């Protein structure tokens, strides 16, 4: 039997395959299909301090090998989560990670402090890279000083595993990664979506209510993979890779490029079973290649 376990800071994952934030709700919908206890981890839908209605419809546009979304962090706020959702999901047999959002540093801190009280949440993912909100979000993640500031302040109030989710919409992602590492991030996850746009040429209107939105799916994989490889070579903390992962080969590519674990996002819309199929596929790969532990793949690209 091959060993699929990986470790992100203090967080032990039974396998390196997690679902990405915003693509697996609060995990409940996935339980209609299978036991989510099989997953390495579960990133919950982006959560803010207060209720957010998100952006107007239409929020989605299909693109070549990908899609744009402009959901805009629709969620009922952290208190609603704690009171109504958390009790229902807390005993799922896999680490549940809250994706923390805010439009000010104070909001990030406030959400984090509340999450800190929850026994069954072993980690947070600080989303400083959402391209679909007017204030905060990505604007924190595209400059070093603001990325540093929010990471530092959140680190002060949070002792468990702190993952910072990076934006790909930058000239040099390694600078941002090093900046948040310097402020105590335990891990970085990348990439969030690329800012993109789609137009209906017949009607001459943008396809999204917000004009621009976030691009995800296989289209972005080559760029995401390059960024994971660059960041892996720039920081010492573990890297969590994502962007267009559709199958086990894709996941393995990210691990070879330096990811200790991966997240599967848009692929879930195509088929909710893809994350579990990937776990199986990685297992088969390791057996076929006679590799004992999945962690041996991490960063072992032959140059």
């Amino acid at each position, binding site marked *: 039997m091959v060993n699929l376990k990986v470790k992100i800071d203090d967080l032990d994952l039974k396998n390196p395959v997690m679902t990405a934030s*915003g*693509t*697996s*709700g609060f995990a*409940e*919908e*996935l*339980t*209609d*299909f299978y036991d989510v206890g099989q997953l390495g981890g579960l990133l919950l*839908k982006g959560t803010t301090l207060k*209720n957010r*209605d*998100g952006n107007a*419809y*239409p*929020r*989605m546009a*299909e*693109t*070549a*090998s*990908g*899609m744009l*979304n402009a*959901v805009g962090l*629709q969620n009922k706020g952290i208190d609603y989560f704690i009171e109504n959702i958390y009790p229902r999901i807390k005993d799922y047999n896999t680490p549940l990670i809250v994706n923390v959002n805010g439009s000010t540093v104070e909001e990030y801190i406030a959400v984090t402090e509340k999450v800190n009280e929850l026994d069954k949440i072993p980690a947070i993912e600080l989303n400083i890279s959402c391209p679909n909100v007017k204030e905060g979000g990505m604007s924190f993640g595209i400059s070093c000083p603001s990325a540093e500031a929010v990471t530092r302040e959140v680190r002060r109030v949070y002792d468990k595993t702190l993952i910072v989710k990076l934006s790909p919409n930058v000239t040099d992602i390694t600078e941002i990664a090093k900046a948040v590492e310097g402020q105590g991030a335990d891990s970085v996850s990348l990439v969030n979506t690329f800012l993109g746009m789609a137009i209906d040429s017949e009607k001459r209107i943008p396809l999204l209510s917000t004009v621009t939105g976030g691009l995800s*799916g296989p289209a972005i994989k080559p760029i995401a993979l390059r960024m994971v490889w660059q960041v892996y070579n720039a920081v010492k903390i573990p890297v969590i890779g994502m962007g267009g992962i559709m199958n086990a080969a894709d996941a393995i590519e990210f691990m070879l490029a330096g990811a200790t674990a991966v997240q599967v996002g*848009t692929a*879930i*819309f*195509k*088929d*909710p*079973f893809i994350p579990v199929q990937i776990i199986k596929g990685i297992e088969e790969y390791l057996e076929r290649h006679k590799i004992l532990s999945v962690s041996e793949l991490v960063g072992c690209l032959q140059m």
Partner: protein
Amino acid sequence: MSKKFVEEFKVVENIALNSSNFLIKLLSKKALPQIAPGQFVNVEVKNSKEIFLRRPFSVFEVDYTQNTMSLIVKILGRGSKKLTEAEDGDTINIVYPLGKSFSYPEKEDKVLLIGGGSGVAPMLFLAKESGLVKENVDILLGARSKEDHIDVSDYAKYGNLHYTTEDGSLGEKGFVTHHSIFEQINNYNKIYACGPDAMMKAVAKIAKKEGVFCEVSLENLMACGFGVCLCCIEPTQKGNLCICTEGPVFNIKELKW
């Protein structure tokens, strides 16, 4: 929440109902779960370079003894076109059953079922399943012209058929809401409707004004179809709701129309 499946169905029939509508009958390898009128499935479009996401289609018919399920696919764009090219024996990957169904009418209800465009399928399904006597069911179907209507004469046993066409080539001329049935809309206890957005809004407006119970089925764009992406939202009295899990059927009182 209820159990959902991802399954490869086998195409056992693909019949052109007219130039743009196809009846696709799909065979499951296993016993089908209960599926009610208004629920839908999310269909993978294979072998198409341009199509990335699935496409949602209402269930039109279920035969639990044969383990078959049928869809009516109207050609709108590239994905629906591709699906209508399916051949017997092909497999089609489907996520199902999705969404909430229409509420079933009470025994004595007099109901009006309104279908237009790609919204005909769930209306016919509901007519068949309603459990009402034919006399209490009116089925009103709208289309641009005679050729765009599919032959639904089989359904005359479940209700009285009425038609509108924009060019007057079949039934009354105009949109469904121009049909003379609407002159006595208070005769009905319940209106159920599925079709293009504009049609739904027109029906809802009258039903609201006249205070008649009305459920409409919406067709917002979807990415996932099972509630995780939050792309298919409709503003409602309870805030933005996903039509794929909280709908696609809504009582018009819940909507902000």
